[in-house]
């Protein structure tokens, strides 16, 4: 009988990604309803020392594979390691982050474990002893409630949505041998080019300042960069401004860009085409600044300012600077 709520913790260069704690706290909540244990799988090299940190967020036991072939992340090595320990322990539920790594790994695991997975969930609960996963579909234009008939019941959780609540548990470490077969490790990371800006990725940002067609050109974004610097925010963009070549593809928020859920999303000069709304409506707080009072973005906004953004934004930046001084 499958038992326990498991997570695949994510670390890079020996430091946990925030999603790992979000996963741990969420797993704890589910496991308490089931009266079961929370276990984490942690893969990497030289990472045994950090494993215990997961205990703070409710993890009872951490299965650690510490092996040079597990750093940096490759699908082949991590999928083999996680599948092995999962098969040996038969958890009821297996959660991963809907991060770039989690999405790459979870699909491969679904193939290895021949099970079902709900991707990018914004809520998970227990109903009649089974996982019920709630997730946006059609980029948030509707939601689906997903039940999984196979085992383990898998789900990936959208970063920045689930609170990383502290709940101290043992976090004991169990080492396991990932039994990696070098001949099966076919993918190699040749180079890691780090983004030098030091800004949070849009999918992990707490605050996003986003600009659309109303920015009138690439130079218009200077005022958004200034505001972002004051708020510690990341700058995003609409499809229109990315397609116009004003901003890089990696900045695009929307159905064919990044799906984001910051605490605060400030949309400047964005009309709110449905495909843009789809990418940002799970933001906790939305501000729209647009001179067109009829723009659909105002239907999603908690606060709206109808005016010329080139007049409002610099003043707003000044006010924020004062408040945060």
């Amino acid at each position: 009988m499958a038992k326990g709520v498991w997570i695949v913790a994510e670390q890079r260069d020996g430091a946990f990604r925030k999603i790992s704690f979000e996963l741990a706290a969420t797993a704890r909540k589910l496991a308490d309803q089931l009266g079961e244990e929370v276990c984490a799988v942690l893969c990497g090299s030289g990472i045994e020392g950090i494993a215990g940190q997961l205990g703070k967020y409710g993890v009872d036991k951490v299965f650690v594979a510490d092996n040079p072939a597990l750093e940096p992340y490759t699908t082949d090595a991590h999928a083999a390691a996680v599948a092995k320990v999962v098969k040996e322990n038969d958890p009821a539920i297996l959660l991963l982050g809907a991060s770039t790594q989690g999405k790459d790994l979870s699909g491969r695991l679904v193939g290895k474990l021949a099970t079902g997975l709900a991707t990018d969930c914004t809520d998970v609960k227990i109903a009649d002893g089974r996982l019920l996963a709630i997730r946006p579909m059609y980029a948030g234009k509707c939601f689906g409630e997903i039940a999984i008939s196979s085992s383990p019941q898998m789900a990936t959780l959208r970063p920045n949505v689930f609170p990383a609540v502290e709940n101290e548990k043992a976090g004991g470490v169990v080492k396991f041998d990932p039994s990696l077969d070098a001949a099966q490790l076919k993918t190699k990371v040749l180079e890691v080019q780090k983004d030098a800006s030091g800004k949070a990725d849009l999918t992990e940002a707490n605050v996003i300042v986003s600009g659309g067609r109303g920015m009138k050109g690439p130079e218009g974004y200077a005022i958004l960069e200034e505001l972002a610097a004051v708020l510690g925010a990341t700058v995003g963009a609409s499809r229109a401004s990315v397609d116009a070549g004003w901003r890089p593809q990696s900045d695009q928020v929307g159905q064919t860009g990044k799906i984001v859920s910051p605490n605060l999303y400030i949309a400047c000069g964005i009309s709110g085409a449905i495909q843009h709304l789809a990418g940002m409506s799970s933001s906790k707080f939305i501000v729209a600044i647009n001179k067109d009072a009829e723009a659909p973005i105002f239907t999603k906004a908690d606060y709206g300012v109808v005016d010329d953004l080139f007049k409002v934004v610099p003043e707003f930046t000044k006010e924020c600077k004062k408040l945060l001084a």
Partner: protein
Amino acid sequence: MNIVACVKQVPDTEAQIKVKPDGSGIEEGGIKWVMNPYDEFGVEEALKLKEKTGGEVTVVSVGPARAMETIRTALAMGADKGIHVCDPALDGADAYATASALAAAIKGIPHDIIFCGQRAIDDDSAQVGAILAELLGIPQTTVVTKFDLTDGAVRVIRPIEGAQLLIECPLPALVTAQKGLNEPRYASLPGIMKAKKKPVDVKDAAALGVSAESKARVVRFVPPPARAAGKIICGDDPAAKAAELARALREEAKVI
């Protein structure tokens, strides 16, 4: 080079999605169906590769009868032939059932490289490529913005949070396409004419010997949660409105 591109027919990004009153699915009336935008990048990359190395591009789709339009679109862009896995039992299939059907279809043909979209914009599962690679026992590189094939080695650029990776793997391999990989071509008029005569093999699940059973099931579709009506900050002076916005975010919303 035997190149495969997997495609899915999905509602256009501008489509309004309405949930059926009983929550059993979405209303399909009035929806404009198109090739999944990420699959277009996959098809384009497949065609570019064929232009470089020679060979053949086979386009494979799992979907209802209307999905044939999407296969024809890929053929009109320049793919050579198609396989359409068409079976009512696969309607609403989950990622595992879909990937199993694709794997069975692709196992029957020579394949050196497979392109998929990084996700389909309808169910947004982002799983099929990876499951398919596993079922075929070949390496995957997912969500890639640059692809190169030199001396039998695939090299891709994969953006992750705060970094870009350069990843290498040998053939046969599966690659999932992200926006930025290329600019998909439009089908030319002669292309569209030629596409009508290109062969498409239609198969059902039984012919492929796969189970159409889904493991993950949408129990209920629901509309997105409604957002409470927002507050418009009024006034004539931009500076005063900016100040009020900052105050409200600080004192009421407590988000800055």
